[in-house]
């Protein structure tokens, strides 16, 4: 599907606009992450990640990205950061850990980068 019109002409490097196209692509992954609002579901995922992902019918690309803890891969596969944050919580990753993973920095380097913008 082509991108819809209107406001979609701007390319912002390093930024995915989570629009209808991405929402369709990422639905299964995001729905799985939304289920992690429940402790029971978080525990079921931790007990058997592959079975849990199969149950939510994640695509191969989505499963590979989750197995590899590859945040950029999850976003590329349609993941929305607000839902992915719940998965990051299961992996015990802080927001700064996630920032570092996406930008090729250690968590400390990422924190320094944030501080440098004050």
């Amino acid at each position: 599907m082509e991108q819809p019109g209107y406001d979609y002409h701007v390319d912002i490097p390093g930024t995915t606009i989570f629009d209808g196209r991405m929402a369709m692509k990422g639905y299964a992954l995001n729905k799985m992450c939304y289920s992690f609002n429940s402790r029971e579901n978080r525990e079921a995922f931790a007990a058997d990640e592959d079975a849990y992902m199969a149950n939510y019918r994640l695509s191969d690309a989505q499963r590979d990205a989750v197995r590899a803890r590859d945040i950029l891969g999850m976003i590329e596969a349609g993941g929305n950061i607000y839902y992915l944050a719940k998965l990051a919580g299961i992996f015990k990753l802080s927001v700064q850990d996630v920032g570092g993973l996406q930008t090729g920095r250690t968590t400390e380097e990422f924190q320094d980068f944030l501080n440098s913008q004050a």
Partner: protein
Amino acid sequence: MARILGGITTSHIPAVGNAIAKNLQDDPYWKPFFDGYPKIHAWIKEQKPDVVINIYNDHGLGFFLDRMPTFAIGAAHEYRNEDEGWGIPELDPFPGAPELSWHIIESMVSDEFDITSCQELPVDHGFTVPMQLFWPGAPHNPDMPRAIPISANTVQHPIPTLKRALDFGKALRKAVLSYPEDIKVVVLGTGGLSHQLDGQRAGFINKEFDLYCLENIVSNPEVLTEISRLELVEKAGAQGTEFLMWMMMRGALGDDVTELTRNYHIPISNTAAGTLLLECA
């Protein structure tokens, strides 16, 4: 008749909920942030609002992508804070003001704002963190007003335009001011300022743009409606679109406001944290 005392804005970073739970207000990392709130506490103590309209954006607790309202208004007797999945402490329920909620919904739909009304709405950190910041101990602060949550979609594009957000606030003002009961209302705009959590641009903060927004939202909010949505993503970061909530709040205050306090601090978590207290004439 009901009147609007003023508006208060704040970032609603989840880490703040943890910092409050651990009493870190005087910790060197947190102090410059928490220093922005004592003047607001004093104002609230003096003004004693009866109702707080809390304009926030849900982050995947109350709504999922199966049904995503652009504008949702709570119309419940109470609002439960539930498990968000990554461990900030859950608070007790917040009492609602459903009669005023329905009055607002009636008025706004008459004004051609198509509202999703919610008789049940779990509220996340976007709602609870500001409540804790302004009414320490919330919801058990003795001055805790009854609450009406309003959530706007910033999860999935297309998000509302800045003009629509400001106009929403203006219609909200009209709705509140036409409520026949003598109650005092305060309006919160929560979220922002610049931040981006996702992608290779994660960690992006834009002080210059934030200061432009802080300056203009006080006295010249109309100029901010010229910012397009993607320009907002570009300049404020992907999650900096939460500035829409500030625009909604500002629209509800009318033309004549006085700025009583302001705070701005980089960084709290990944975010440039901003706080404003605006009093209505």
